[in-house]
């Protein structure tokens, strides 16, 4: 199954290597990892997605916590979340077929962020399946894709949880407490 871990790690040299090395050791492929500053000074927030057996979640989380530079680990496993990915897609486009691509982008609520005589760049934010969908339609409509750049998943639990609250709850083991406030994960973006 797909596992998603959100973790707070110290923002200093070598930390990413330590996290990555753990997965390498377990022979688990990291599907995506996004890292950036968090709301807490000196700590980066990481969303890491990997494919592993259902039972592996506990061991991965426990092992991540054994790394000195890892402060918090949340195993998102099935909890209501908002998950997004950013994609930049460059396709061949001339004045003859540009408008067709504009239409496609409109349907997918993507934006055109760059345009030249021979190509244009689409920016799209959304859940993974929508990005896959856009790419598939571009291919099926025989638009030539020149480049794709994807950020990987970013995930945040729904509801009023700061990371501190989650920590107090002992996240990852328990069901999310506010089921009723939660909507389907990966709901349509605004």
């Amino acid at each position, binding site marked *: 199954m797909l596992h998603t871990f959100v973790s707070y790690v110290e923002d200093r*040299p*070598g930390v990413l*290597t*330590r996290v990555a*090395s753990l997965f390498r*050791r377990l022979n688990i492929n990291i599907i995506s990892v996004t890292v950036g500053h968090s709301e807490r000074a000196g700590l980066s927030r990481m969303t890491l997605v990997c494919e592993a057996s259902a*039972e592996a979640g*506990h*061991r991965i*989380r*426990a*092992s991540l*916590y*054994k*790394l*000195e530079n890892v402060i*918090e680990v949340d195993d998102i496993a099935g909890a209501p979340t908002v998950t997004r990915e950013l994609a930049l897609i460059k396709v061949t486009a001339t004045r003859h077929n540009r408008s067709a691509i504009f239409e496609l982008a409109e349907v997918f609520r993507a934006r055109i962020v760059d345009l030249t005589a021979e190509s244009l760049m689409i920016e799209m934010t959304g859940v993974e399946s929508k990005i896959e969908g856009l790419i598939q339609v571009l291919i099926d409509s025989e638009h030539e894709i020149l480049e794709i750049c994807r950020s990987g998943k970013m995930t945040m639990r729904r509801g009023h949880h700061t990371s501190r609250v989650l*920590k107090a709850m*002992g996240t990852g*083991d328990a069901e999310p407490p506010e089921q009723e406030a939660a909507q389907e994960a990966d709901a349509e973006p605004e």
Partner: protein
Amino acid sequence: METNTNSLSAAPAMLTGSEILWATLVGEGVTDVFGYPGGAILPAYDALRKFPIRHILVRHEQGAAHMADGYARASGKVGVAIATSGPGATNLVTGIATAMLDSIPMVCITGNVSSKVLGTDAFQEVDITGVTLPVTKHNFLVSRAEEIAPAIRQAFQIAKSGRPGPVLVDITKDAQQATARFDFEAAQPKPYRPHPMLKVETDGLSAAAELIRGAKKPVILAGHGIMQSGAMEQVRALAERAQIPVAMTLLGIGGFPASHPLNLGMMGMHGEAWVNDAIQNADLLIACGMRFDDRVIGTPHTYATKAKKIHIEIDPAEINKNIKVDVALVGDLREVLEQLLPRVSSGKTGQHSGASAWLKSIEASKGESAVRDMKNLPDLGHLYAAHVMHDLWRITGGNAIVATDVGQHQMWEAQYFHHEHPRSLVTSGGLGTMGFALPAAIGAKVACPDKEVWVIAGDGGFQMTAAELATIRQENLKINIAIINNGYLGMVRQWQEFFYDRNYESTPLVSPDFVKLADAHGIAGRAVKTRGELAAAVEEARTHNGPFLLNFLVEQEDSVYPMIPAGSALHEMIRRPGHNPLVETPDDL
């Protein structure tokens, strides 16, 4: 000198990085370090004489790491090893991995090239924090003098807290040479954060107590955690209160007295048949500070299928890793047992319902294999390794610290040398590192100078680190060495005999005359060829003023029984042949 030392390690002052390094070690209570100098660590060595620290000069950095490891295993203190950059640092790696696999608290300090040339493939530059990342609990690259004290102090905290392990601190040469303000107190690390997934809840404790109360065939599995946590008394109390027999892992040996009537002996690949049978027939296993290693479970799906399992363990990542458990009490073993014990009432009611029937049935299952008559056997001239272990145990009264190497002799030692005390067996379990025994014994002797220390090594493994004989001589350490010389890489030969049609490829071993080798190092020795000479030789070694080496020329094609072939179930073990004379009677014990 004294005042100088005090001023260097007490009040805040401006010091060089090198001085800060030693002053911090002194502050952490370090009195002995094992190391080998070189260019990148030379500034540190230059400052050493100002500090009250004994430096043991090794002959190979692997030896330094094993010595620090043996020091830690024998004393419970953090061992310290020091090496220079590049080849010095990489030579430590086997020793660091050995400590990692057995959760040994150790701090390794390496010099590195100056920070200005880091990453340029400068002379003797190796990315040792990169190299050791997977075999250390944590490591640090320090490039400024200000960072030395905080890094070293944090390294000590990490090494000994929670599940212990080795930590490496790599210090650039310019950081050693620069000057900074040293304030030991201010360099104190943040308070230790216990693993956030530790969990000992009332429900779990009640469930565990309930399982213990209801069990008819319980077995305690006693591991290294007993020593690490100092839970000897608590494990004993649990066993006695509920009359539960105790099976030992290799590293658990010593955590529960061998002479205790409830001690079954060692479990696993070379555990006695009755121990493994008891585990397979048990209805409850109480795992105390052990990790269901593949060497003790055979195969996961055939392991103790009838038993409920309680796992008391400090590392949450070990829970349900190899074996699914019913109740997990994730915390320090001693603390958990102290909470559990009041729930296991003593006396008749507290005993699990079938106490005596279960203990009797285990006793009965010993049968032939437990008839051990070694003492009274006629001396046919043959010398078996088991004889050596038995007599070493008998003559030392089981009170020595024994450092074993890896192979057949290691298993025979575990079977025939009966350890009464914690930290009296120093052996590489998880990594199975040949060459471990001699340097580890040096570390143990430095840590415990008043203890009798024996090395028991195979003819193969001894040669991997034999150069440390010179260290023994230079440091004048009274260490006795028993080489179990069977002319083979015996354990590998045994596998070839059992599983590879006796194709003894690359296992026969031509060795130097070990007595002459000792002599060349200024160490006395004697070869022992028959059973008749054994006891006198052991006495000679013990009473000799100085180190002594005994070269025991034992039966060459002897095998360790019982044996669970890799990938088989515990009950599918190859049993001890009935006619095997190498057994002990109760009178022997």
